[in-house]
């Protein structure tokens, strides 16, 4: 069964002074994958600058704008229509041999192949005194441990906006024990990686119809690699597995690799920026 979603992404920028040159790069197009299929992409801006479709350093689709005339304000609106397959996140063979699986992840070949998602980055660095904050119990399977970690993370932090910002490190998050989806995800990624599990940061959209935590911005969750199973999505903000309400845009090591909008604006003075995201299921 497929669900049809309609997603609207809006961004508005106003500047105190004329902007003579600017570049924006949007990383907001849903990824095409085995559970996501496109119907429509529509992207417009208020000054009719041309959209350039490209890829970023990690191979994800981007839209770049480089206006050819000066302006003081510019707004963007993107509309995506998407078919999302309703795949049961538990639909895989459970791991039989726990010991073999743990041996696999400890092997050098595995650690080299997955090095990029095992690395510590500034956003996923656990303070050195807390390196044993969460240790896997090897009597359970990797999947079970990740599920426990997902629950643990969701309980360890309290969802609260405006406590942290996009620059917050885990040191700060762990002291405040509050944050938003980005912080929950960084913590989950960091702890899973410390236990030897390749884990990537996912940026995307969340359909909030079911009362999930998120906000009117983009959502973040994680994907962890389990030998013989592959990448499995975990949403530690909501203590659930990623499901048909999670629409993936991009992945990376942390938030920095996935930021939805990057802008290089040559102007002086102050500016204001506003974003909003709306996800609607057209079947409802």
């Amino acid at each position, binding site marked *: 069964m497929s669900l049809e979603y309609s997603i609207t992404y809006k961004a508005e920028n106003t500047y105190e002074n004329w902007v003579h040159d600017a*570049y924006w*790069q949007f990383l907001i197009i849903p990824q095409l994958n085995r559970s996501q299929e496109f119907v429509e992409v529509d992207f417009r801006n208020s000054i009719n600058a041309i959209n350039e479709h*490209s*890829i*970023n350093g990690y191979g994800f689709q981007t839209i770049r704008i480089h206006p050819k005339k000066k302006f003081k304000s510019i707004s963007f609106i993107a509309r995506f229509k998407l078919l999302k397959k309703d795949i049961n996140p538990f639909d895989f063979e459970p791991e039989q041999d726990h010991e073999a699986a743990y041996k696999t992840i400890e092997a*050098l*070949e595995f650690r*080299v192949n997955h*090095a990029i998602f095992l690395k510590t980055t500034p956003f996923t660095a656990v303070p050195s005194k807390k390196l044993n904050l969460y240790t896997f119990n090897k009597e359970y399977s990797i999947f079970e441990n990740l599920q426990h970690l997902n629950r643990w993370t969701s309980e360890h932090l309290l969802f609260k906006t405006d406590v942290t910002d996009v620059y917050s490190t885990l040191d700060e998050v762990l002291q405040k024990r509050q944050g938003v989806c980005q912080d929950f995800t960084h913590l989950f990624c960091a702890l899973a990686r410390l236990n030897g599990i390749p884990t990537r940061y996912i940026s995307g959209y969340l359909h909030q119809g079911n009362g999930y935590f998120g906000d009117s911005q983009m959502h973040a969750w994680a994907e962890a690699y389990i030998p013989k199973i592959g990448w499995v999505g975990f949403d530690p903000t909501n203590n659930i597995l990623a499901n048909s309400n999670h629409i993936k845009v991009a992945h990376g090591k942390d938030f920095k690799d996935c930021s939805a909008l*990057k802008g290089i604006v040559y102007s002086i003075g102050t500016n204001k920026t506003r974003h909003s995201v709306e996800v609607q299921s057209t079947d409802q």
Partner: protein
Amino acid sequence: MENIENQIFSSYQRNPLLFDEIFDQGGEVKDVYAKLFKLYGEHSINDYVKLNDKAKASFFNQGITFQVYGENETKEKIFPFDLFPRIIDPQEWKVIENGSIQRSKALNSFLWDIYHDKKILKQGIVPIDLINSSVNYLDQMIGVDPPGGIYNHISGTDIIKHNDGQYYVLEDNIRCPSGVSYVICNRTALKRALFGVFNHYQTHTVTNYAENLLELLETVKPKGVDSPNVVVITPGMYNSAFYEHSYLAKTMGVELVEGRDLFVENDFVYMKTIRGPEKVDVIYRRIDDAFIDPLEFRADSALGVPGLFSAYKKGNVTLANAPGTGVADDKAVYTYMPEIIKYYLDEEPILNNVHTYHCSRPDELKYVVENVEKLVIKPVDEAGGYGISIGNRLTRDEIETVRKQVKENPRKYVAQPIMSLSVHPTYIDDSESFEQRHIDLRTFTILGKDREFVLKGGLTRVALKKGNLVVNSSQGGGSKDTWVLKE
């Protein structure tokens, strides 16, 4: 100390513990310098001083200057030049040249491997942690095939001669190595001042560098391009090597641009010209990775070109050197060079590596901490000779400080035995005579598609401060013309 009989060398003091490039242990002039020694001997020290001033003036007149970054101010200086050339005989040169090529090729294979199959890491020959912890490894380069398969198009290899008479490599510089313009300008200045002397030797030319660089850059053009448009990109006139950037662009006959002169449209790179946009195919970039594209790397970079990395990733433009090359220029990777050469080329290293202690290994850290006074301790990621501690020059307090720094952050440091750099007679203004000064050599190797070139010469740097071992130009070093003799 012994004095040498020759008018301009009458007060030359020879320290028998040091390897002198022109005098052997018995104080005799080596064959290769004999003619030069005789010719110089016909002059008085006053003649020499006049000639030296003339040569210096030629540098000022050509505007060959560089900047030294100080704590409070930045100064523009001329690179001190010494008229007494260094001579390398053909047999020794062959070793240096073959060794430089060998290292460049091995590093290129290493870079390809760590961004593709990662075999050397999977076999545990080079530890994966070394790559994981390197800020110069770019995840964005994984799986990217640079045009022509080349990463380190331009390498600067720093080589010294130890007191055992053997050459050792100290560093492989493969980010944006500079200095080649001085090689060529030194030759020009020397020829102007001492044309008569120069003509007595059959010396290889160094003025063919730019044409070879251009030719080799053209071999790594993007697919589908017939005759590539090459440019040199510079961070601008405030960069310490700006003179070199403009010199290379001028002598290659290509445009010198800054980031703001280029733009990217639909993943192709264009240069703004008065005739309209002109497509650019190959960029010899003298800007560090972090600054080349503010949309992909440091967003605060005003030096780069937004979208440049996407254009590169799509194969529409060549960047020389390739992004991510700096990971192999890490001083910790250096220590694995003998293994890297054997692994990819199945050859024995032609040039020696200096034995290196990794402070990241507990037993080696212990040795380093206990023997600071016998070692040179270097941070793994600083260029330009900054942050280096030479153990036998430190006070007790300084030794303690170094111990503390190393223990706090072992991954950041490597240590090597103190090498005794060879010395060369060098004219010293203050004493108005020739004195022994330590020297090294930077060779310049260019890799193209199925082609390579080593400049037959190189930059001989001189530590002008008495007893100083750091020959870097930003640390008060000078340079000498380097003659590679024809067979």
